[in-house]
């Protein structure tokens, strides 16, 4: 930034910092930017303070917490090992819910993704419809979908599968659509140049390019769905959540421990499997 020194004059450096005669000062940010940054930080702190004010801290409870925790831990031990056999069927049901839900989402996601991608959608209406589907699916949590479908189809794993499926569509379609928007246009152009119809261009030019993306995204989502499937039972949508709910309602803490262990193990295994599958296909 070498300006010439001119004793007796003020300099404006490119940062807008005035230096009194002869002295050159370096600051990380110009005065204006410093003020801006300070203002932003102040605003940030104000927002957080407002958030804290909503904290209805029942101090008696907080102070009591360690005692509660120790007490709870005591009741949860020793784990009810004999309950292990009873945990397996609901756990398997959980895995099935997650898998079937993911399959359902996978099948529905591809057309939705193609509609949601700017380079493959038919017109603005289809683009908009696809975007609405994706946004709705993503904004509503699995548990809420589970509540809705449990009210429609009655409690049980059917509601769970549909809930998981509907929620997953938003996630997978969005990521697949991003993959579609990044494909090599040239390959598609070449297939168009042979005079192939639109559907064949899709099949030969686009699908092969996005296959790795689809596999990666679906496997990733399956992993997440295992986690989610284990709790949707809390609102009646099947799986181990129902068992957990019962155990808690009956204050059967040793059983709760076993259930938690089971969930933990299964989720970890699914993450491991998912990692392996994704590495294979990329």
């Amino acid at each position, binding site marked *: 930034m070498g300006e010439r020194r001119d004793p007796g004059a003020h300099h404006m450096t490119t940062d807008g910092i005035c230096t009194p005669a002869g002295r050159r000062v370096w600051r990380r940010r110009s005065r204006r930017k410093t003020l801006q940054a300070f203002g932003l930080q102040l605003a940030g702190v104000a927002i957080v303070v407002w958030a804290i004010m909503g904290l209805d801290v029942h101090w008696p409870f907080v102070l009591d917490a360690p005692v509660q925790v120790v007490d709870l831990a005591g009741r949860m031990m020793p784990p009810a090992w004999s309950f292990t056999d009873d945990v397996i069927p609901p756990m398997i049901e959980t895995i099935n819910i997650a898998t079937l839900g993911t399959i359902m989402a996978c099948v529905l996601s591809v057309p939705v993704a193609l509609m949601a991608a700017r380079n493959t959608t038919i017109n603005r209406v289809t683009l908009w419809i696809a975007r609405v589907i994706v946004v709705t699916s993503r904004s509503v949590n699995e548990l809420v979908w589970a509540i809705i479908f449990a009210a429609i189809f009655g409690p049980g794993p059917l509601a769970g599968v549909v809930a998981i499926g509907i929620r997953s569509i938003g996630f997978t379609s969005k990521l697949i659509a991003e993959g579609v928007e990044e494909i*090599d246009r*040239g*390959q598609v*152009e*070449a*297939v*168009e*140049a*042979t*005079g*192939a*119809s639109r*559907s*064949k261009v899709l*099949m*030969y*030019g686009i699908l*092969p*390019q996005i*296959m790795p993306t689809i596999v990666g995204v679906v496997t990733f989502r399956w992993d997440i769905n295992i986690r989610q499937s284990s709790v949707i039972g809390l609102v009646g949508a099947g799986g181990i959540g129902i068992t957990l709910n019962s155990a808690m309602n009956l204050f059967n803490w040793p059983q709760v421990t076993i259930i938690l262990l089971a969930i933990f193990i299964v989720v970890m295994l699914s993450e491991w499997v998912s990692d392996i599958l994704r590495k294979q296909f990329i």
Partner: protein
Amino acid sequence: MLQVDSLTKTYPTGQKALDGCSLTVETGQVVAVIGPSGAGKSSLIRCVNRLVEPTQGRIWLDGTDVTRLGRNQMARMRRHMGMIFQEYNLVERLTVMENVLSGRLGFVSFWQAFLRRFPQADIDRAFELLDQVGLSGYENSRADALSGGQRQRVGIARALMQEPRILLVDEPTSSLDPRTARTILGLIADLARERGLPALINIHDVGLALMFAERVVGLSQARVVFDGVPDQLDEHILTRIFGEADWRQTVRHAGDDERAMAAANQADDGAPVSPHADGIGSV
């Protein structure tokens, strides 16, 4: 026979790529289109099969006005136009055989394409073409496992698989080294002549154009400034076409790449090397 009449293309950015271009390609003729970058060569080729939409003008292929066709009719028309691309544009993840067979996509049903059950006649011809372009035995290799020259051969086979009435070739050799470029262009010209196919070849290398084409069309700043036989091309005309750009620089010889690399190595030692060292002479 291809007839182009007063073709104009203005892109949405305002760039005028073609300005009232007209030319004719007779049956069985190999025509090279030369000119500096940005002159409109690529737009011209792509307008014929309407990968780029002409703004004005008409194009007739064997008497049919291509510019007036609707979407479905144009798709059917494209079956008769084989295109070869600069970047090969193969479907990378599919095998060589699938890429060649994709030339027949316009002729088979959706299910046949989906299940890869192409008619035996197509498969026979595919094998034959692979032999002709020198890729026997490669049918099950994945496209992205091939070298540049090999990929372009697949592109040629794909285009010929359509049994087209015209070959549209868009800078087939710009991504290849000089020796392979010459081989590939020769292959294209030979195969076209054998079949009596008219071919419109957009080519950047003037030397190659003169070597293989019967007729040359020169494009400069969106206009046709030359249309004649290679013998007619002299210094004056080439300078008119290329203007500021030195047309000699477009000419590459086999061994050019090696020489350039050697020169670069010399430069690392500190010895000054002029950019136009040996190797670039007259056509």
